[in-house]
């Protein structure tokens, strides 16, 4: 029942029309705000980026489609189309037959359907009847006959229906065949056309699909895009690469390809394409599905860092390369520093740091040159000496600095003092860093003008440093082991010495140019110290003693023995002693010890174990010299000199620096930025620190004992980039073992060998694994240079190599060489590792090998003849006498073949002769069996066979091999010829090339009566036959 409306007018508390207006306007505002919310929610930068990419993709697809169209629609296509029209006309002529056949087929269809159904029903009924019968047989024998009758009836019906069905099917097949025959030719042509236009059609349909039409917009509009959007987040889940938040591991979910759409697709390499849309460089190494790091199991962030789940430019943590890019990004993307992101994307110049996490067990990083250089810097500058790095500690790299155990016997004390003050003033490219007079003690080069307070600090700092230097040197000279330097009589020839240094191979590890810049990564000739100025440092007699046998002075030295003769060594020592220090070094004022400062230094160290009064009492017992030695010892412990130098009293001392094993994963807030205003990122801090390690002491008021201690390595900007890359690579692994590089046993052998090669600077002289050989570039004639080591494992017998590396003999293989392969004094373990290394590189058998077999006498003789024909002896001496014959051009000589049987692997010899250009590109060994047009090698001797000038040789070959045909077959086969040659060369080493190598006598019958197994040859093991190599 409707209520009565109240009497008008109603008395309201508020002005209702006003409220109505208020409500209207606020409702309008709310609606607008709601629409704004929907838009803001659906607007995403990545959608715009994907749209733009679709347009780019569409343009490129169109180009590809046009190109494919050009290729497909040619004369052949026109012909095919014409044929198609003709075949269609033919079919039209047979229209009657075709329609009749089609009608028949159509009529048969319902019949066969019914027949099929009837058959199926019958089959079912039969199965049931069979069951009933069997059941009756088993349980109700009386009912069996009736059941059997039923069964038979149903069986008959089934048979009839089966036949009927088969008949109908056959009729259908016949009709279909008729139709197919008529249409056959048309179908063939259509298939051919289809195949030829596939590329074009695919490109075209892709082009169509990339159109952003109405359907596309609808698909991606708000609400509707929940069904199946085309603009969507692309992600790859990486449970094997997890994020470690301590006590929990979160799987990574990389969404980078949402914006970097084409990163894992080929075809977008053009540098004109916007960077975000470009394909990843070197996809065969990374990201490509055929590479070792496919995108769907490695993603992006495990290598590049960044926030994996981010879907916007800023949130992902992209880091600008430099200030210019930072300004550009701030303007374009409203970029700002994200202080909450502990792991932003590594700047591109440090991107290789991401490799180290999984490849830490490897020695070289040839594919990542920045990281490789950085690790070389870390290893050769000795960072690992003060800062423990777990992976490098296990490598047992020798200390980078020379031993100071006998320094008093070698170097004058004043020289040492001046050196410690400023190493670079003596040797510009030294690896020793500067410890003293740095900015936290004597800041004269800082950004602020030295005011009086700063002046005072500088003065104090200088006095402190002066005293410290004197104390350290005092300790070193007090504890230096007394050793006598034997004086040498006679004078050497300085000019000859200068020549010898270049000839003997010293320059494989040393330079002698005072102006040389430090280059730890581009050259291998800075392994040992720069020799300029050595005459000011050590006496001639010491130098002589040293180069004659370095290990006699210091058993742990890296310098090998070059087996110099006495006169050679004297000449070299004489020459080296003429190289004096740069100007100003020898005259530099020596620092003075301030006794008060010395006392306070001593007191500080004493008070670490004593009370103030006991400390003072202890110090009062010491005279100035004793105080200096005491302070020196403690200062060496304070500054960690023993990290690089072996120092008496510090044999077991521990590193003083922060452990760097996981420095690249360190939380940024644990880095002390002090008062320096740099962005709060790891890489900025590392770079600043490495550039000037004491910088974070700026504006701090600290005593010397609390000041930063890391010395300044004087790194160039490029070295800084590389070193920072390396340190950034020292990260927590945070990856399952299945995705980390695991070394197989042979790969581990290779890595062990590489480590020895790196630690002994083999690449100073030799090109090994394709790089190195710095010495070769300063030799005028490369034939006088140390050989390139390539395929050594497949080439030489491992036991020979073992012996050779243990004790190389000058002039055995290449007698014309002036340069000496040094004796390194490898341990057994190192020798085994090295031989295993070379063998593993070439996947050669290791360690034991059945050496060469018996030679067929005919083959041997033929080989000898070919040897003479090809004039091999012209370059290859067969004995020392050959080498010393007058008129021999040394530059064209090749290795001594007398060594072949002892040194080379039997089967390798033939292979080498067949294809030396493949084994060693650039070799001077001629390619006697070049590749023909068909890509296979042929023997020119075979072609020569019928030439008249060859007649006598032909006869000879026929005689040896038993006929012309055999001779021709022999000479035309590179395999046969090289096998014969190999057999002859082998015999040179066994018996001087006088007779084929015989089958060795069969071993004696064993006592048990079993026949001993026949062996084709002898087994070579630790020793080799015929005596020591």
């Amino acid at each position, binding site marked *: 029942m409707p209520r009565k409306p109240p009497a008008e007018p*109603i*008395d*309201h*508390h*508020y002005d*209702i029309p006003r*409220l109505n207006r*208020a*409500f209207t306007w*606020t*409702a309008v*505002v*709310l609606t607008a*705000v*709601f629409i*704004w*919310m929907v838009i*803001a929610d659906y607007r995403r930068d990545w959608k715009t980026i994907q749209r733009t990419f679709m347009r780019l993709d569409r343009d490129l697809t169109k180009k590809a489609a046009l190109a494919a169209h050009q290729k497909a629609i040619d004369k052949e296509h026109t012909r095919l189309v014409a044929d198609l029209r003709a075949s269609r006309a033919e079919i039209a002529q047979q229209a009657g037959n075709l329609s009749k056949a089609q009608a028949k087929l159509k009529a048969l269809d319902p019949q066969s359907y019914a027949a099929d159904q009837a058959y199926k029903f019958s089959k079912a009924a039969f199965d049931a009847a069979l069951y009933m019968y069997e059941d009756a047989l088993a349980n109700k024998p009386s009912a069996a006959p009736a059941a059997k009758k039923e069964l038979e009836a149903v069986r008959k019906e089934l048979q009839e229906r089966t036949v009927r069905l088969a008949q109908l099917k056959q009729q259908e097949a016949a009709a279909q065949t008729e139709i197919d025959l008529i249409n056959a030719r048309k179908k063939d042509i259509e298939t051919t056309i289809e195949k030829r236009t596939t590329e074009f059609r695919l490109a075209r349909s892709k082009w169509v699909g990339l159109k952003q039409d109405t359907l596309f917009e609808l698909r991606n509009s708000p609400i509707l895009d929940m069904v199946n959007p085309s603009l969507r987040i692309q992600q790859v889940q990486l449970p094997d690469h997890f*994020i470690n*938040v*301590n*006590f929990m591991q*979160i799987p990574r979910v990389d969404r980078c390809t949402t914006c970097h759409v084409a990163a894992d697709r080929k075809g977008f390499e053009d540098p004109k394409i916007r960077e975000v849309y470009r394909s990843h460089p070197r996809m065969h190494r990374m990201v490509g599905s055929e590479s070792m790091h496919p995108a769907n199991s490695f993603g992006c962030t495990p290598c590049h860092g960044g926030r994996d789940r981010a879907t916007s430019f800023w949130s992902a943590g992209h880091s600008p390369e430099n200030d210019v890019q930072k300004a550009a990004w701030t303007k374009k993307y409203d970029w700002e520093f994200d202080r*909450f*992101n*502990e792991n932003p994307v590594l700047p591109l110049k440090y991107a290789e740091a991401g490799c180290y996490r999984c490849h830490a067990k490897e020695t070289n990083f040839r594919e990542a040159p920045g990281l490789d250089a950085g690790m070389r810097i870390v290893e050769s500058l000795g960072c690992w000496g003060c800062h423990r790095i777990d992976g490098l500690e296990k490598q047992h790299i020798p200390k980078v600095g020379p031993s100071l155990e006998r320094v008093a016997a070698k170097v004058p004390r004043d020289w040492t003092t001046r050196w410690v003050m400023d190493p670079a003033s003596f040797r510009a490219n030294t690896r020793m860093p500067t410890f003293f007079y740095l900015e936290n003690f004597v800041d004269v080069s800082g950004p602020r003008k030295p005011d009086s307070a700063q002046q005072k600090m500088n003065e104090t700092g200088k006095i402190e440093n002066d005293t410290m230097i004197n104390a350290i040197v005092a300790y070193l000279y007090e504890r230096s082991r007394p050793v006598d330097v034997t004086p040498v009589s006679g004078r050497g020839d300085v000019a000859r010495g200068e020549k010898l240094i270049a000839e003997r191979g010293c320059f494989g590890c040393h330079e002698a140019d005072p102006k040389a810049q430090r280059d730890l990564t581009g050259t291998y000739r800075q392994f040992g110290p720069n020799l300029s100025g050595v005459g000011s440092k050590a006496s001639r007699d010491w130098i002589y003693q040293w180069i004659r046998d370095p290990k006699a002075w210091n058993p742990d030295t890296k310098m090998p023995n070059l087996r110099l003769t006495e006169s050679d060594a004297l000449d070299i020592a004489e020459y080296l002693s003429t190289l004096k220090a740069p100007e100003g070094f020898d005259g530099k004022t020596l620092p003075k010890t301030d006794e008060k400062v010395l006392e306070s230094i001593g007191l500080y160290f004493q008070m670490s174990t004593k009370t103030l009064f006991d400390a003072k009492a202890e110090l009062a017992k010491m005279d100035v010299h004793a105080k200096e030695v005491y302070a020196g010892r403690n200062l060496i412990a304070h500054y960690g000199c023993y990290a690089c130098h072996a120092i008496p009293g510090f044999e077991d001392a521990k590193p003083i620096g922060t452990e760097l094993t996981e420095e690249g994963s360190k*939380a940024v*807030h644990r880095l002390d930025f002090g008062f320096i205003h740099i962005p709060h990122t790891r890489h900025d801090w590392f770079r600043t620190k490495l550039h000037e390690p004491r910088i974070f002491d700026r504006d701090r008021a600290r005593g010397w004992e609390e000041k930063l201690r890391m010395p300044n390595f004087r790194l160039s900007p490029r070295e800084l980039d590389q070193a920072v890359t390396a340190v950034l690579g020292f990260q927590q692994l945070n990856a399952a073992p299945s995705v980390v590089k695991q070394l197989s046993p042979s790969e581990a052998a290779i890595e062990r060998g590489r480590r020895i090669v790196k630690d002994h600077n083999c690449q100073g002289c030799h090109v090994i694994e394709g790089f190195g050989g710095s010495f070769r570039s300063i030799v005028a004639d490369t034939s006088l240079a140390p050989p390139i080591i390539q395929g050594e494992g497949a080439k030489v017998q491992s036991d020979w190599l073992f012996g050779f590396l243990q004790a190389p003999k000058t002039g055995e293989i290449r007698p014309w060489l002036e340069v000496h392969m040094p004796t390194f004094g490898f341990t057994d373990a190192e020798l085994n590792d090295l031989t295993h290394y070379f063998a593993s590189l070439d996947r050669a058998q290791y360690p034991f090998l059945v050496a060469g077999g018996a030679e067929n006498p005919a083959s041997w003789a033929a080989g000898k003849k070919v040897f003479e024909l090809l004039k091999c002896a012209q370059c290859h001496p067969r004995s020392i006498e050959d080498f010393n014959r007058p008129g021999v051009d040394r530059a064209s000589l090749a290795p001594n073949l007398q060594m072949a049987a002892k040194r080379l692997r039997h089967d390798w010899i033939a292979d080498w002769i067949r294809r030396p250009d493949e084994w060693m590109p650039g070799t001077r060994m001629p390619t006697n069996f070049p590749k023909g047009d068909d890509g296979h090698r042929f023997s020119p001797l075979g072609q020569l066979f019928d030439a008249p000038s060859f007649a006598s040789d032909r006869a000879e070959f026929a005689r040896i091999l038993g006929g012309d045909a055999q001779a021709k077959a022999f000479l035309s086969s590179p395999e046969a010829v090289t096998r014969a040659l190999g057999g002859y060369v082998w015999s040179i080493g066994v018996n001087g090339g006088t007779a084929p190598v015989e089958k060795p006598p069969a071993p004696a019958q064993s006592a048990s009566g079993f026949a001993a197994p026949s062996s084709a040859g002898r087994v070579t093991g630790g020793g080799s036959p015929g005596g020591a190599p």
Partner: protein
Amino acid sequence: MFIVQFVKNAIDFLSAPQYLVTGALIGLILMIHWAPAWSKKGGLILFALVAGGIGLSYLDPNFNKVATLPDNVPIVGMIFLVGFFFWFAMSQAYENDRRIAEGRPPIEGEDASQKVFSWPDLVYVELICLVVVMAVMIVWSIVLKAPLEEPANPTDSPNPAKAPWYFLGLQEMLVYFDPWLAGVVLPSLIIVGLMAIPYIDTNPKGNGYFTFKERRWEITIFLVGFLVLWCVLIVLGTFLRGPNWNFFGPYEFWDINKLVPLNNINLSEIIWIKVFKRSLPNFWLIREIFGLILVGIYVAVLPLVFSKTLLRRFFEKMDMPRYLIGVSLGLMMMSLPIKMYLRWIFNLKYIVAIPEFAFNI
């Protein structure tokens, strides 16, 4: 400009907790008795001062960094909201007091006898408010997004680690009180006290209309407890407490390395070591006897003393239970500023320190 820097330094200095709380207390007591503040003109001037002050402060980079954090924007809003409703209530109260003095009914009494429909007079206005609030919330949520940081790392706690705004008052109390008191006892008493107000407050005046003169004590006590001991502490905790819970003025840079000596001393140490020059007794009862006596006097004796002197009027109006509960709650409330002053003036840490039971006052 030098003058600007001088003003900023002055504000930085005066924002220290001791001056801030003292200033707020004295300021509050004075202001609620000063009629010109509660006129419309007065309100506008107050608003202009606060808004202008805060607005100009946004020009300072350090203040800006803190005050534009999405978490802190509501607190800035709170300052204005609480300020407005405080001013509105007081201005209405003063107006009503004027009217009552003239013999007229209060503002709310004008149309009190009249009856109106809930729709539209009650609910329509609420609907419009709803719409407005919805629009404001949506705009706010679009413009100021909630900050998403990294997954929580147990070994890397943020510094400072601040409680949500509604607990910042309690977090500030933790500076002065033992966690048992600051975190359990006093918050419980706050809640219990708020619940108990209707049963203690026997003043029949002020039902349904604002008034100040008729409810001076009640309003003063509440405003001290709410504005000074709660809202001011929230503002202090939001803007003036930085890393390591150090005090930083509004224009000061939040330096994580700032070190302030916290050389606070217990009452027992003052009395035994400084005054008596003896070592601290081992047994806690003897050691803390002075503190315990003081606390005992404060809690047990003061109410009785007040009943005869300061609060005699109240004692006579209420009966014993009401009076005792009310005075106890009041004393508990005042223990916070008292402890604060003891800390600021005497560096007093604990009046009673019994680490054996982990109980300190």
